[in-house]
């Protein structure tokens, strides 16, 4: 039997092969996700419970309380979902499988797409489920401009994915990742107004909020659910900028690999 000598395909064939490899990688990562769904489930169920419990408080405290409780908790728990992305990528490092993939024919870009695509789907599903739940159970007015809402979700999930990949690339253990992801998520999202409406927060916090991606996500989603296209664009652009910076750094770091070092 012939040995693999690594022929070079033409451009169309190369694209087809690339897609074939990405599908294989994404399939494998989907399996891994499906076999360990606990974290995902809890990040969907917890905000559902909290929305029910906190709704009366919000409605009494601020105008548009229903919208704020749904979008606020959605943003908060989608930020928690960063750790799903982070853990998934970090696990490849602790299992040492990342290096096995790096010696395969798939270039780093394919590895990352194959790795993150299923997580992207999970994040989009999480946010969509929470929005639908918000409409059906909490009483969020059904958004008039569904594509706008969907677009916002896509942008926000992409940002979260990039932040998660970045964290996974710089931490040295799952412990470090949970500290950064959980404490960071709570701080950033509550500072961004996800837990307590911004208008009720002290003035310094309202200013500091603008540093948090959660703040922009909230602004974007709140504009999107009321169909305010113009108001959706600036936050979306800022989020995409953050995603780009985090993503590029993560890709560079993950491409280089760690060899045997880098983990606690």
């Amino acid at each position, binding site marked *: 039997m012939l040995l*693999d000598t*690594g022929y070079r395909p033409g451009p169309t064939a190369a694209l087809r092969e690339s897609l*074939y*490899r990405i599908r294989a990688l994404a399939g*494998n990562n989907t399996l891994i996700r499906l076999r360990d769904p606990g974290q995902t489930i809890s990040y969907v169920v917890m905000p559902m419970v909290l929305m029910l419990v906190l709704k009366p408080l919000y409605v009494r405290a601020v105008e548009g309380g229903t919208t704020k409780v749904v979008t606020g908790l959605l943003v908060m728990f989608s930020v928690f979902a960063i750790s799903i992305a982070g853990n998934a990528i970090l696990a490849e490092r602790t*299992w*040492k499988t990342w290096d096995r993939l790096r010696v395969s*024919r*798939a270039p780093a870009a394919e590895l990352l797409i194959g790795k993150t695509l299923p997580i992207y789907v999970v994040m989009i599903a999480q946010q969509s489920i929470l929005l639908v739940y918000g409409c059906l159970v909490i009483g969020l007015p059904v958004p008039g401009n569904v594509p706008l809402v969907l677009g916002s979700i896509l942008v926000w999930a992409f940002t979260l994915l990039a932040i998660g990949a970045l964290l996974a690339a710089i931490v040295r253990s799952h412990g470090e990742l949970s500290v950064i992801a959980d404490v960071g998520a709570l701080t950033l999202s509550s500072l961004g107004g996800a837990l307590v409406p911004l208008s009720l927060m002290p003035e310094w916090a309202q200013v500091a909020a603008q540093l948090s991606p959660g703040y922009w996500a909230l602004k974007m989603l709140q504009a999107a659910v009321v169909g305010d296209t113009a108001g959706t664009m600036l936050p979306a652009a800022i989020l995409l900028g953050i995603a780009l910076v985090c993503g590029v750094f993560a890709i560079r770091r993950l491409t280089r690999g760690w*060899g045997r070092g880098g983990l606690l």
Partner: protein
Amino acid sequence: MLHAIDLVKRYGPVLALDGFSLSVAAGEIVGLVGHNGAGKTTFVEIVSYLIRQDAGHVTIDGRPPSASRGRVGVAPQHIALYPSVTVREHLNLFGKLAGLRRAALDGAIEELTVALRLGSFIDRRTAGLSGGQQRRVQAATALIHRPGLLLLDEPTAGADLETREAMLDVVKQRAGDGAAIVYTTHYLPELVELQATIAVARSGKIIARGTYDELVDGLPGEVRLIHDNEEEVRVSTTQPAATLIDLLGRAERPISTIEVHNPSLDDLYRSLAVSDAP
């Protein structure tokens, strides 16, 4: 096929490779041996482009490792498998990553399942497998696409007799098909069975390279006689048989025990490698 010249790799104060040179021809098995920390795994990592050397050159079929992705099959020293994924799913993944499709993929999986005896656990998740079973799965994922260069880093570590035989058979067969193979091990008899070229690494360098006969020839063996169950004679010699005959001819008292110890790879290893190990 594989040429590595004067590789240097430094980790802080540690010189992992210090002028490491090794070539492997197509169809050749090079058994890479050497003490713990000699630099064997570091060499494998550089050839598979997982880490970069500080100095020196590597070519695989004339190309640098960076341009040889996917053409090298690597079974790392440490088990690196997805715990919640089954053996068959692993083979599918690595086969597809190498571009194998349907019939070719199924054929390759079938062949390795038989050759490495994976059948009884092929649909189990790897987390539940024994160490030797995981070892075989790991080798299978490296072999699935029939790469022209195989880097097997201690593929029989922790393996039982049967696993070892299966592994050696597959390695011999792949070399017969024309693959260049780097095979690291601490079990020297395996290299005799593989009829491998032996390369001895010490402190980041290759200090000896040759066939078993070439390397062992000229090493001293030992002849040991015991007269009347009490007086012991030990003679160190490069020609044990001739020395034995000579001793027997000169013996004046009855001999109760005769032992002839031919020089072995272990002696070679001891004389070259371990004696000066850091």
